C-alpha cells in the first residue's frame, strides 16, 4: 500500500477479510472485539485472516506476533505501526 491507511481504512479492510473468510457480518467487526471470544474465529481461520491481511496491507505478520493479536484493535495498531 503506497499511502499509509487510516485506522478506519484498516478496520474496513479487516472487516472485508473476516466477512470473506469466516462469514462474520462486517458491522460486527469493531475494534474492541476479541477474535476468539467475540467473533468465534478459530486458530486456523486466524492464519488465513493474517495471510489475507498481509497481502491487503503490505506488511509481514510473523507467527510470534500473530499470537499477540487478540483483538481487532491489536491488528489495527500492528499494521499502523509498521506503516508509520
Amino acid at each position, binding site marked *: 500500500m503506497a499511502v499509509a491507511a487510516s485506522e478506519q481504512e484498516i478496520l474496513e479492510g479487516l472487516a472485508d477479510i473476516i466477512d*470473506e*473468510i*469466516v*462469514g462474520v457480518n462486517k458491522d460486527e467487526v469493531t475494534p474492541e472485539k476479541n477474535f476468539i471470544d467475540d467473533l468465534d474465529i478459530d486458530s*486456523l481461520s486466524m*492464519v*488465513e485472516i493474517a*495471510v489475507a491481511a498481509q497481502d491487503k496491507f503490505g506488511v509481514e505478520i510473523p507467527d510470534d506476533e500473530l499470537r499477540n493479536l487478540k483483538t481487532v484493535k491489536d491488528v489495527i495498531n500492528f499494521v499502523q505501526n509498521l506503516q508509520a
Partner: protein
Amino acid sequence: MSTSQTNVVVTGLGATTPLGGDWPSTWSALLAGKSGVRRLDWEDIEDLPVRFAATLAVDPSEMLPKQQLRRLDRSQAIALISAREAWRDAGFAPRARSRKDDEPAEGDVVDGDRLGVVVSSGIGGLHTALSSYDVYKEKGWSRVSPFTVPMLMPNGSSGHVGIEFGAMAGSHAMVSACASSAEAVGYAIDMIRAGRADVVICGGTEACIHPLQMASFGSMRALSTRNEEPERASRPYDKNRDGFVLGEGSATMILESEEHARARGARIYGIAAGCGYSGDAHDIVQPDPTGSGQAKAMRRAMLDAGLEPADIAHVNAHATSTPLGDVAELASLKVALGTEAAAGLIVTATKSMTGHLLGGAGALESVITVVSLYEGVVPPTANLEDPDDEVDLDIVRGEPRKLPDGPLAALNNSFGFGGHNVSVAFRRA
C-alpha cells in the same frame, strides 16, 4: 429368515449424484433409465483417451455457504449435503442432543453419545491435494491453506458430518477403494448390533473427476473410451462394453436399532440385515478370476443376515462395465447361491446410469437396493443392447422390473482394488 441379533433398520436416505441433487430425483432418473454421463469441455484434456464422466447433476457450491466451502473438499461438501438430506428424511432435529446443546428442537432428538458416524471415501480430497500443490509452486508455502490437511484426508467427511450432527459414539472411515462405503454400511450395522450406538449416519463420497485421475485410470486401460456417445459408454454385460465411467457423488443412510426406530415411530425403509467380507489375496487390481473371493463375501453376508439363497430375490451387482469383471461376478453369484437360486435372481447394474462413484458406489447402491425392496421395483441396466454370450442370469433391461410381494431380501455387491470384497444384505421390514 430370522436372527437373534438386534435388527438394524434404515430410516433415512440422502444422495447427491450425477442423476440428481437429492435422492428422489436420483431415484426417478434411475427408473427412467437416464444417464448421468456427460462430455467434459475442459481445455486440458484434449490429449486424454477419455473426455467424459458422470459429473454431479447439481453444483454443490450453490448448496452451501461460501465460507463453509472454503474449508471443504468437493467430496466433503457433497457428503455433508447428502448427510443433511438423510438426517432430515429420518425426521431428526437438526443436531443430536449433546452436552452443549440442550434446547428443544423440531424433530426427534438423539443422544449424541449414542450417535455414530461412518462416512468413507476411497481417495479423499484429490482436488485439494493437487490445487494446493499448484498454490505452493506459484505462491510459496505460506499461501497454502491451513485447512489443506483436513480437506485432503479421506476421513475428513466423517469428521465434518460428525461435527454437524453431534455424533459422539464414534467416527470412522473405512478405506477400501470401490468397496469403501459398502464397508461403511457394514461397520455401521456392527456398531448398532454391538450396542455402541442407537443411530449411525453411514455412507460414502467421492469427487475425483480430475485430469490426473482420468489419466491414471486411462493408463490402466480401465475406462471406456466411447467419447462420441458418452451416455452410452457405461454398459455392463453388453458385448460392446469397454471399461467403466468415472463418476462422482455421495449417498447416506441413517441406520438405527429397530427398537429405537419403533419407539419414535420412524418410517422404516427396510432392514440392513448383514454384511459379508472377504479378501481376494490375489492381485492388487485384478479380481480373482475364479470369483471365489466374491462368492465368499456373498455367502458370509447371507450367513450374517440369517438368510438362505432362496430368500435372495434381487442383486444390485458391482458390474462396472469392464470386459472381465461383470461376467466374473455373475459366475461368483452362481457359486455363492447355487445355480438354481441364482437362476431366479433379478439382477441390475445401476452404474450403467450413475457411472462408477468409486468410494461412494457402495453407499449409493445400498440406498438403491433398499429402496428397490421398499418400492418393489428394480431400476433397469441401461445400454444393455446385446448381452455378452456369458450372461446367463436374469438382468433387468429396458424397463424397471416389479419385485414380487412378500418377505424378500437382496444383496448389494461392491468390490475394490486391493481385493476387497463386500456384500451387504437387506430385507423388507
